């Protein structure tokens, strides 16, 4: 295709936006409405996911080592733990480290624990994280069965409930987003189909003067892309401002480690890009699919 023809298609695509007046408004409106929903929902889901990931990251196994174990036994134990498939990271935490940690965690009352500094009753421990947090329970069992392990702690019930919840949340989220996007595509392609239906005569005339299908399709392609992108403006603005305020107000009020929103930058920008991409995609898809029908003359 010649460059000036491409320029012509671009010009026609833009002109069509204005020529079609109310139909343009209707299509852009449909895109805007759905993208607002998709955007809000995506922001919610991705953040829930992020929090779930954060929680899962926190899950660790404290494997307490028998007090009778020798230096060599402890070294050997590390190798054995590392040999297990599910093992992600292993770090050694001496009984002194643990006491310091305990004193720090207890705050003012921690001072009473200082008397144990001379004769530490705690055990050395390995802190183990599973490669995949969902394998924590199985891994803990395997570690528990090793020699020189006194006890394995990993907050069994909490962990299991957390994983079940996260899995449900993710699956439901994926299904909902997929459903929403499909509904959006259906809605928008129908709106665009209406605008093109009104133009079927126009397409017929183009064919009669010898326009190839590609020649006819291009301006529609560009028009669809512009409609989708125009429809993304409001949702992107809403996401950016809404998320900005949410990020600032929630971060100030909630101090739990795991209730942490994805940081505004880059998350809000990435989300905006995704919204624009989805908008452009459904615009193009809707208009190209609809115009196809009228090209068989």
């Amino acid at each position, binding site marked *: 295709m010649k460059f000036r*023809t491409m320029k012509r298609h671009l010009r026609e695509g833009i002109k069509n936006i204005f020529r079609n007046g109310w139909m343009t408004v209707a299509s852009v409106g449909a895109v805007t409405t759905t993208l607002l929903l998709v955007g809000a929902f995506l922001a919610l889901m991705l953040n829930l996911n992020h929090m779930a990931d954060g929680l899962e990251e926190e899950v660790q196994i404290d494997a307490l080592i028998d007090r009778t174990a020798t230096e060599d036994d402890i070294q050997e134990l590390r190798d054995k733990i590392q040999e297990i498939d599910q093992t992600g990271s292993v770090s050694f935490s001496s009984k002194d480290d643990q006491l310091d940690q305990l004193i720090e965690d207890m705050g003012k009352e921690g001072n009473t624990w200082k008397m144990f500094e001379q004769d530490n009753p705690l055990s050395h421990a390995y802190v183990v994280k599973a490669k995949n947090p969902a394998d924590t329970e199985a891994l803990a069992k395997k570690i528990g069965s090793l020699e020189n392990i006194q006890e394995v702690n990993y907050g069994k019930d909490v962990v299991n409930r957390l994983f079940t919840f996260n899995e449900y949340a993710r699956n439901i989220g994926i299904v909902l987003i997929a459903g929403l996007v499909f509904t959006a595509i259906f809605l928008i392609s129908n709106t665009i189909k209406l605008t093109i239906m009104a133009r079927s005569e126009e397409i017929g005339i183009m064919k*009669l*003067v010898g*326009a190839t299908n590609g020649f006819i399709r291009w301006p529609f392609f560009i028009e669809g892309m512009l409609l989708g992108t125009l429809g993304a403006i409001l949702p992107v603005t809403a996401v950016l401002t809404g998320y900005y305020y949410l990020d600032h107000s929630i971060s100030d009020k909630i101090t739990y480690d795991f209730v942490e929103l994805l940081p505004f930058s880059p998350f809000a920008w990435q989300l905006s890009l995704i919204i624009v991409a989805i908008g452009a995609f459904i615009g193009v898809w809707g208009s190209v699919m609809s115009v196809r029908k009228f090209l068989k003359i």
Partner: protein
Amino acid sequence: MIKMRDVHKTYANGVTALNGITIDIDQGEFVYIVGPSGAGKSTFVRLMFRETKPSEGSITINDVDMSNMKEKNVPFLRRNIGVIFQDFKLLSKLTVYENIAFALEVIEESPRNIRKRVMDVLELVGLKNKARFLPDELSGGEQQRVSIARAIVNHPKIVIADEPTGNLDPETSWGIMRIFEEINAQGTTILMATHSKEIVNTIKKRVIAIEDGLIVRDEHRGEYGYEV
């Protein structure tokens, strides 16, 4: 230049429009297609620019076999044929200038050539001062002249007109006919389906009469032959 051999056309709904048409039309001829309504005139005309395909038989235009033509080649065939309709078929959102320029944009003409050729053809049909008007702002005769301008701006070898004066008053019709004669004088083949007894009997040309899907008469400098 146009050769039809035993052309039949039966539509999907079972209606038979053409029942074995064989005809030769030479370059530069001016041919009227006449006959009662529903006789098959429109089908005859529509076969020429491949708006519909024959069910049987062959059509060749300039040695190109249209019956077996691949779909993707059809647009290129149509660029050699100008088509004019009773209802003009102009793009209502484009100006007169843009409507005509469109036929040239399709063949990727340069903007400078487009400008020149559109203005030339507007001059020929006498609408140079209406280039910026929208079709709805013009009279019927003016709209038909725009559609003629669009049909001939490519310098096609053949111009096909399906009742081009059907919606126009007599005086405007004569104006249209003068344009056709002028194009024809430059060597363009003209095929015109018409119901106008006055035109056919006044501007004498070859007349092909179709009835019940068959050619019943083919005369040079013929008469309309039907009572109105």
